[in-house]
């Protein structure tokens, strides 16, 4: 689903960016934004803030299911390929073993299971995060440059049903934002 919907809000405004001075301020602000019922918003921090996912009310990622399906596909594919090659397509007696010598197929089955699961994890993560993304309106903001240094941000996107340029900005200010900025698309 995230893959199919457009990556960024359409319309004149991307959304509102609010800067917070400390992780504590951000954490509590996230709880309030969550409780206000916003759905299309994000938090940006220079380092992982423990428990922020709960404060934001994030649902659990579907990534484990992608990894499981990919892992099983890889394992089944690896086993099936060897089965077909050794027992059907090119039946050769190797080291006096039967054509279908399943123990010999386990290492490759395991390796392909791990390989595909890793592909699922990496590319699934990129897909769910809608990466790579070559343009993002947040980078127009001057203060947002400090997101990798010492500042903490909440961005609420304009296509959120509860978004209102002035009311949302006031809400963020009331939550202790150091600065609030309306960003163009």
């Amino acid at each position: 689903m995230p893959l199919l919907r457009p990556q960024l809000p359409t319309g004149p405004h991307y959304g509102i960016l609010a800067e917070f001075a400390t992780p504590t301020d951000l954490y509590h602000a996230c709880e309030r934004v969550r409780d206000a019922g916003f759905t299309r918003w994000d938090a940006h921090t220079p380092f992982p803030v423990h428990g922020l996912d709960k404060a934001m009310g994030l649902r659990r990622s579907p990534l484990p299911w992608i990894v499981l399906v990919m892992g099983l596909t890889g394992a089944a594919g690896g086993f099936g390929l060897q089965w077909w090659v050794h027992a059907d397509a090119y039946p050769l007696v190797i080291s006096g073993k039967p054509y279908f010598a399943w123990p010999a197929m386990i290492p490759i089955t395991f390796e392909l299971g791990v390989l595909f699961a890793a592909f699922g994890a990496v590319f699934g993560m990129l897909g769910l995060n809608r990466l790579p993304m070559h343009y993002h309106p947040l980078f127009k903001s001057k203060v947002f440059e400090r997101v990798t240094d010492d500042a903490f941000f909440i961005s609420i996107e304009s296509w959120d049903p509860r978004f209102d340029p002035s009311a949302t900005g006031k809400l963020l200010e009331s939550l202790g934002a150091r600065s609030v900025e309306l960003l163009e698309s």
Partner: protein
Amino acid sequence: MTAEHDLVALRPEQPTIPPEHPWNRLPVIGAVCAVLGIVVCAILGMGNPKQFFFSWLVSFLFFLSLALGALFFVLIQYASQGGWGIVLRRIGEITFATVPMMAALFIPVLFGLHDLFSWSVPGAAEHDALLQWKAPFLNIPFFLIRAALYFGIWSFIALLYYRGSRGQDVTGDPRVSARLRRFAGPGIIVLALTSTFASVDWIMSLTPHWYSTMFGVYFFAGSFVGFIALLSVVAVAMRQAGLLDTVISAEHLQDIGKFLFAFMVFWTYIAFSQFFLIWYGNLPEETIWYRARMEGSWLTVSIFLMAGHFAVPFFYLMGRAVKRRNSTLAVGGAWLLAMHFVDLYWQVMPTLHPEGLRLSALDVAAFVAVGGCFVAAASWLMRRQALVPLRDPRLAESLAFENV
């Protein structure tokens, strides 16, 4: 901001078994089981001593491996300075504090050396080149010296850590943690060597012609899974019984579940690697052991072990929710505990019954006897102290532990 940085403290009534609690009766129940088991063993064992010795060996190895698994677990926690598991450490400490008692439970095995170990029968090596070659290692005096050495070393490590941790309950001295941490690294190495040799002596040498270079790791892997399975069952049982129910959280259960899953897979990896190389190389002195387990009803047990010790728990324990709920984690733990017993049974019993699986009442009696002693000793120790290391410097961290 987050719970991690808040200092969480125990309430004084939390970490002990209250006076009228039903768990106070466990030592008596265990002792009654032990006496009953020993009496039945004595009666049935008179008629069939060989079966008795093998049944006793399996049950002895099962409970010993749980104690050794606990010793590994606690030493690894110290060596890695793990914080999350501090609230669970006392369960491990109580489990491995039974090691000196295990030495006493080993005595019946000594009376059955000739019945258990064909190499120990006088004259066994006379017309057997391989046994002659192995005789400098596989002879009764050296076997006894080694057994005494294992139990001496294990008891020393066990009591060092048990006493250290309990002493810290009183003094609260953080240097105890530092001292035990310094000893943990070398301790793990010593433990790995002794448990390897013990498994060679007590399991591998049942088939004295057999060669396998992986058996020690296989025994360790099984022991570790066994203890983590026991830990999950005990942790859940405690929560259900109202002990540590507010101390051990779903977060701790999830980490036990992760350990259980990981070492179940590790056991599979080692078990398969041992089989795979022997199967591929196809050398007679290596394949004899597996050949006995790939015929008749032992093959059924082998397949059951592959499914029950790997395939089923692999999918069962994979999910997050399963590891966080009392009931589901305990089911997984109890299942793997049973599988660990099947694993040891499958390692030992084909020597006695090469023709196929022959269950015996003595299997049950020996299990009840050894298990009764184990439960009695562990629950007796539980009553005498706090159920968590009260003044470990990392206790607050462990109480507040959360998975990311």
